[in-house]
């Protein structure tokens, strides 16, 4: 929502372009290998992931432009690695604000300052703040420049039906309606997914009581990019307020509604202005400020029981709704897009069996359930659901004023990428490793020459071989797209990976470890790679 007299797209800092429905109609009904429904960050990332593997797609977006407000603003480190693999990270690096620190206040006094894991071995910071419109703009500019992606704006899906070996979508735009046949569909159409509804699928999970207003203001405010959480502040007794800095002098104020306060009343402009003024007074901002945009949300943990329905895969918010405190809504959606993207591309190009796709739902649903477990803790702390949780929360906050140990309860538990330990395409350790990324985990980055280990990863699977790899040629016979990176068995990376001469890590296209061996030959690696691509599972 925006202040009186301004339209939904009248932003103080962002100029919205308008994109038309396709004018040329002759090719619209051509059969597509993949149709992606929804042109938000997740759908755009899916299209770019497929295109990077050489697979064309049609991308349908019902709206005529980018998202109307800043909405998802926290981009986690691993999402930067996804953007990097897609060749789009540069504008994000230029525009977004990186951060590592959070501060928590109780009744105006700081009780905790936490640092997210970071260091010289990391290429990117743990978190970046950037308004969602920019995220979409940067991804869309890459999509528009890519001849493999046919993006159609103002194109709404009104029906979807199964056919033998495919799906047919009914599409409506300003110039007419048409039937679009597809081999596969990726539903990236958001929390209110029309595809989910048309397929008769429902979320299961919990709705929490807590409701929050997110409001953006533009102001010159001298404070570093540090996430501030205010518990029980004078401006909202008993409530919780979060403050984030964004580019373009935009500040995100996020505050909890009181019990019994109606969302309708709380989102009226005068109510939002009064609440924001209270928060700004609390943090000592005395200068001018302008109200830019606001919205309301509740802290839900909802997900589909299966992210696949026949030849349709659900990615992003269409598959799962998570509370914001772990900043995993956008970031897990991007990981969904990358996960299904590399697998589906290989199935379409017939370099992997269709059963490879069976690993998508367990891996990504596992990531969602992990977020639920952590987010439930954060949500209970931010929004205590009962008297018991309220008493203990207040006890911890009160103690934290003088006892640092109690401040740890207020740590927002910023999430790290999920480890696919139980995935059918992860091979559990048979050798003992003292450290290093475990099977299913994202690789640990490291300094290497003038750059980083992540710079050396190939576009497909990567074999990290410490020292010479016997029978290296066997790998190319299974997967000609695999990249072999030879690393010093004595170096800093070897220590971080508990590696010696002969140690091998097999890394997936999404930078998760598929398998590792203390000593292996190219033949050992080829056998596991063959099992993964043939859909038998890594342990077969």
């Amino acid at each position, binding site marked *: 929502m925006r202040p009186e007299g301004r339209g939904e797209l009248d932003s103080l800092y962002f100029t919205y372009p308008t994109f038309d429905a396709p004018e040329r109609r002759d090719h619209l009904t051509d059969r597509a290998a993949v149709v992606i429904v929804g042109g938000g960050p997740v759908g755009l990332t899916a299209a770019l992931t497929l295109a990077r593997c050489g697979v064309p797609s049609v991308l349908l977006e019902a709206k005529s432009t980018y998202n109307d407000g800043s909405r998802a603003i926290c981009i986690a480190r691993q999402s930067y690695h996804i953007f990097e693999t897609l060749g789009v990270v540069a504008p994000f690096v230029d525009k977004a604000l990186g951060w590592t620190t959070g501060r928590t206040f109780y009744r105006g006094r700081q009780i905790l300052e936490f640092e997210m894991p970071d260091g010289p071995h990391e290429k990117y910071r743990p978190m970046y703040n950037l308004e969602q419109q920019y995220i979409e703009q940067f991804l869309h500019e890459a999509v528009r420049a890519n001849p493999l992606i046919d993006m159609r704006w103002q194109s709404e899906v009104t029906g979807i039906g199964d056919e033998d070996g495919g799906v047919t979508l009914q599409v409506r735009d300003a110039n007419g309606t048409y039937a679009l046949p597809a081999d596969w569909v990726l539903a990236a159409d958001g929390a209110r997914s029309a595809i989910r509804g048309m397929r008769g699928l429902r979320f299961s999970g919990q709705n929490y009581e807590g409701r929050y207003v997110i409001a953006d203001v533009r102001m010159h405010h001298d404070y570093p990019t540090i996430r501030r959480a205010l518990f029980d502040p004078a401006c909202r007794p008993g409530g919780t307020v979060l403050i984030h800095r964004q580019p373009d002098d935009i500040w995100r104020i996020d505050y909890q509604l009181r019990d019994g306060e109606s969302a309708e009343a709380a989102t009226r402009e005068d109510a939002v202005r009064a609440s924001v003024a209270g928060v700004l007074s609390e943090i000592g901002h005395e200068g001018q400020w302008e109200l830019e945009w606001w919205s309301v949300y509740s802290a839900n943990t909802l997900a589909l029981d299966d992210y696949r329905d026949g030849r349709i895969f659900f990615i992003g918010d269409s598959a799962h709704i998570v509370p914001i405190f772990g900043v995993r809504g956008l970031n897990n959606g991007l990981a969904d897009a990358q996960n299904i993207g590399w697998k589906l591309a290989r199935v379409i190009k017939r370099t992997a069996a269709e059963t490879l796709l069976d690993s998508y739902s367990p891996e990504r649903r596992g990531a969602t359930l992990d977020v639920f477990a952590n987010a439930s803790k954060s949500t209970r702390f931010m929004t205590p659901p009962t008297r018991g949780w309220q008493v*203990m929360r*207040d*006890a911890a906050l009160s103690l934290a004023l003088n*006892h640092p140990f109690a401040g740890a309860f207020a740590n927002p538990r910023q999430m790290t990428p999920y480890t696919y330990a139980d995935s059918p395409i992860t091979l559990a350790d048979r050798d003992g490793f003292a450290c290093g990324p475990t099977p299913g985990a994202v690789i640990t980055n490291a300094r290497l020459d003038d750059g980083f280990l992540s710079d050396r990863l190939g576009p497909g699977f990567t074999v990290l071989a410490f020292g010479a790899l016997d029978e290296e040629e066997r790998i190319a016979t299974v997967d000609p797209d695999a990249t072999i990176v030879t690393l010093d068995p004595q170096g800093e990376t070897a220590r971080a990976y508990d590696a010696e001469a002969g140690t091998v890590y097999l890394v997936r296209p999404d930078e998760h470890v598929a398998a590792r061996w203390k000593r292996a030959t190219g033949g050992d690696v080829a056998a596991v790679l063959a099992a993964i691509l043939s859909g038998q599972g890594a342990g077969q």
Partner: protein
Amino acid sequence: MSATTLETVYERLAEAIDATGSEKETLLLAKLALLLAEALGDPDRVVGLIEDAARDLD
């Protein structure tokens, strides 16, 4: 700990609950529980003691 000093704890707790008043006594006791748990450094034992404390409340 000798009986005399445990009795001192008993008395101080009674006085602290009275001084705090019924509105805040729960908060006082919850803070004390967290402080004692931190000092004890044995979360399993604390969980067992919570179960002990929850018995025979009627």
